[in-house]
């Protein structure tokens, strides 16, 4: 046991592995902070490079780059209200509100500090509970996924600060967008209008870049005076984080647990973890009215959650070769190529490699703090630059980034279209975050519902009779009925009060 642990350390503390970790970290930080280039994209672009590396260095590259990219997606979200990756979209408005209040360093500090903590706790869960967590994933068939995705959709009304009907309308628009293409259960082209480019459907990335980045730029152009952001030097980034850690224990625990659970489930990744955690933070908060005005609670919970999910996403990948999310789907390919074939034997025969993997996870999350501080300091200059120079560079990055996801000019056109949609929606008080949520969840809701019905020959009973599904269904109905109960109780109290007087 101790021997294998030492062997693990020896495998990690090789020059090539350490260079790979640092190089991949810097790369991940930069790519993640560019709008349109997601953590998945950052990982995919690294695959050809890993061809020439030793097995441990190759895996280290993937781990370090993906962890950094998920964190650094928060930076443009916080400074410019443009999320760098889909995983940051849930709390972008919140972080930007803090920046407007002049608390950019606190907001970014929260993202950084709690991302690192979440990542480390996620890793510990991977070390301690891998087989147990994997067993849990096997309780999930499409019936359970349906309820999970349905619960995810209900977050739309919680994360938005507008009226619930408008949030639901925006979410439905997102669901409609997710209907486009041939990647549906029936394999039939829908809403493609004979266009080849629409056959593959509309992906989340162009939608996200359009409604957040391009719409933000359009707003910037429409305003005569850009909103005043206090011109001053950034204070300490980690100042006050320790106090926040001590005062926000429940949020962290919840964020980490939700992140770990969602990460383990195949097909649900960091984006979903962030949405669900942000919504939960608001639901259980004593001061939900402060959400959206620059309040740290939601940031802490969601920031911890998306990084925790990243580590636990490796559990099904390592044990069964089943990807927990899109990043581990790529990582599995690299594992096979390097002779570290996923499976239970990886934990027994190649135990030292497994320890090496754990150590890399922890190192990556620790060096995230100093490297992240440097990245934040460097990028904070964008707040001091004239708005027009920043915005024109962002337009360029949006176009390049969206083109790069498929080497397809159509994606750039899509970004422009969604920019206009996002601008019009925002102008009329429809939350664009709810639209993005609809696009993220739409495919999963439809796929899991239709395939479940095929399996059960059209019967809806298994949605309630399977034990895990029953629990999730009960949670869903409780969440659905809760507002009605609150309304009834208020009405009753209102009816009672005059009588008491």
């Amino acid at each position, binding site marked *: 046991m101790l021997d294998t642990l030492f062997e693990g350390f020896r495998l990690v503390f090789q020059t090539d592995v350490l260079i790979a970790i640092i190089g991949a970290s810097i790369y991940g930080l930069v790519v993640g902070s560019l709008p349109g280039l997601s953590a998945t*994209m950052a990982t995919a672009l690294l695959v050809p490079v890993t061809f020439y590396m030793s097995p441990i260095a190759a895996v280290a590259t993937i781990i370090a780059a993906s962890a950094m990219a998920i964190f650094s997606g928060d930076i443009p979200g916080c400074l410019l209200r443009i999320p760098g990756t889909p995983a940051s979209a849930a709390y972008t408005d919140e972080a930007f509100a803090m920046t407007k209040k002049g608390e950019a360093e606190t907001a970014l500090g929260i993202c950084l500090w709690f991302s690192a903590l979440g990542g480390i706790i996620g890793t510990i869960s991977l070390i301690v509970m891998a087989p147990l967590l994997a067993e849990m994933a096997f309780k999930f068939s499409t019936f359970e996924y349906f309820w999970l995705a349905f619960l995810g959709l209900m977050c739309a009304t919680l994360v938005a600060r507008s009226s619930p009907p408008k949030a639901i309308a925006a979410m439905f628009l997102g669901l409609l967008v997710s209907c486009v293409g041939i990647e549906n259960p029936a394999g039939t082209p829908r809403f493609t209008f004979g266009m080849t*480019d629409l056959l*593959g459907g509309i992906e989340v990335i162009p939608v996200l870049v359009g409604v957040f980045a391009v719409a933000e730029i359009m707003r910037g152009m429409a305003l005569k005076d850009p909103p005043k952001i206090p011109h001053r030097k950034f204070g300490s980034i980690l100042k006050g984080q320790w106090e926040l850690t001590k005062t926000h224990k429940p949020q962290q625990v919840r964020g980490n647990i939700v992140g770990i659970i969602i990460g383990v489930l195949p097909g649900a990744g960091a984006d979903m973890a962030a949405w669900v955690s942000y919504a939960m933070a608001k639901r259980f908060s004593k001061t939900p009215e402060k959400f959206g005005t620059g309040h740290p609670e939601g940031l802490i919970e969601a920031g911890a959650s998306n990084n925790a999910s990243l580590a636990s996403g490796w559990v099904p990948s390592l044990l*069964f070769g089943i990807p927990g999310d899109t990043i581990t*789907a790529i990582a599995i*390919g690299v594992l096979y190529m390097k002779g570290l074939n996923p*499976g239970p034997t990886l934990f027994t025969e190649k135990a030292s490699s497994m320890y090496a993997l754990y150590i890399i996870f922890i190192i990556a999350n620790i060096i995230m703090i100093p490297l992240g501080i440097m990245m934040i300091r460097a990028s904070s200059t964008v707040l001091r630059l004239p708005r027009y120079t920043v915005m024109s560079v962002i337009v360029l990055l949006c176009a390049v980034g969206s083109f790069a996801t498929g*080497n397809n000019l159509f994606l750039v056109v899509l970004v422009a279209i969604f920019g206009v949609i996002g601008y019009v929606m925002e102008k009329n008080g429809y939350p664009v975050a709810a639209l993005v949520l609809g696009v993220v969840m739409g495919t999963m809701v439809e*796929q899991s519902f239709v395939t479940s019905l095929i399996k059960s020959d059209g019967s809806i009973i298994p949605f309630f009779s399977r034990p895990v599904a029953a629990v999730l269904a009960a949670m869903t109905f409780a969440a659905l009925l809760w507002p009605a109960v609150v309304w009834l109780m208020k009405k009753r109290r209102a009816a009672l009060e005059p009588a008491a007087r």
Partner: protein
Amino acid sequence: MTDLTRRGFVASAAAAATAGVIAKPAIAQSAWPNRPVTVVVPWGAGGGTDATARIVSSILEKNLGQPFNVVNRTGGSGVVGHSAIATAAPDGYTIGMITVEITMMHHQGLTDLKHSSYTPLALMNEDPPGVQVKADGPFKDIKQLADFIKANPGKLKASGTGQGGIWHLALVGWLNAMGLKADAVPWVPSNGAAPAMQDLAAGGIDLVTCSVPEGKAMIDAGRARSLAIMAAQRNPLFPDVPTLNETLGINYSVGAWRGIAGPKGMPADVAAKLTAELKKAYDSNEFKDFMKARGFGTVWAPAQEFDAFMAKGDASMASAMKAAGLAKS
């Protein structure tokens, strides 16, 4: 403003076209390749097709001394990338990796492209489907499973890919070969082989007809069992898995394949040189080791044979898709 830009665009396009005209004779004179070659991949970075194309490209680059740049042209469920290869200039400087979908998409009416829209260069990989069931389930061998399906049509559910995907058609073809209709085992669409294998272990479905390497991790974990493969011979990497022919006496084989092709009308000397270079790459240890590590099957067929292989696959796909009710006409 718009006029100006448009004029500017037209001017630059014209300039590019003239440059192309001037450049062409120059290419014909000097030996191919004298500038970088683009290798189009219709599927996303990080996947199996991408990895295969990249390893082949890196070997070609080393042997021919010119960069072979892999470009992922994704979208449209593969149609976008496949048409990018077919519509490129047939000068040998744009080639691509085409996949089994080229023999399927046109039957569905998704595109007019088919295998004859290309200059076939070489077939390099084929993975036959297997029949995987739950390890602790009732089926111990393929005969038992086949008998159960015959006795209880519509009872078992299968998965492995989306509706009308290659593994779906493999199942339909196998059922047809047994004299059964496509609905004897209803298909549950999934987002690929890995989620289907997970659902198999979770008890959501009864069999998965993905390739054996795709199910390997779950088989090793003791969660699933492979009963047979739909191929002419056993896979040397999985010697214990029998073929359909030796167990059921059904001579049915099909597979997901990948090959290199260029646009139609490539110069014959360039095509011949590429095929020869691809053969060298195929025989290299680098390629063999890579494919073995990923569990991908290797098959070699040069230009003419690759063409015949695709024509045969196209015809069998046509009948399988008609049987599954997926063909347009």
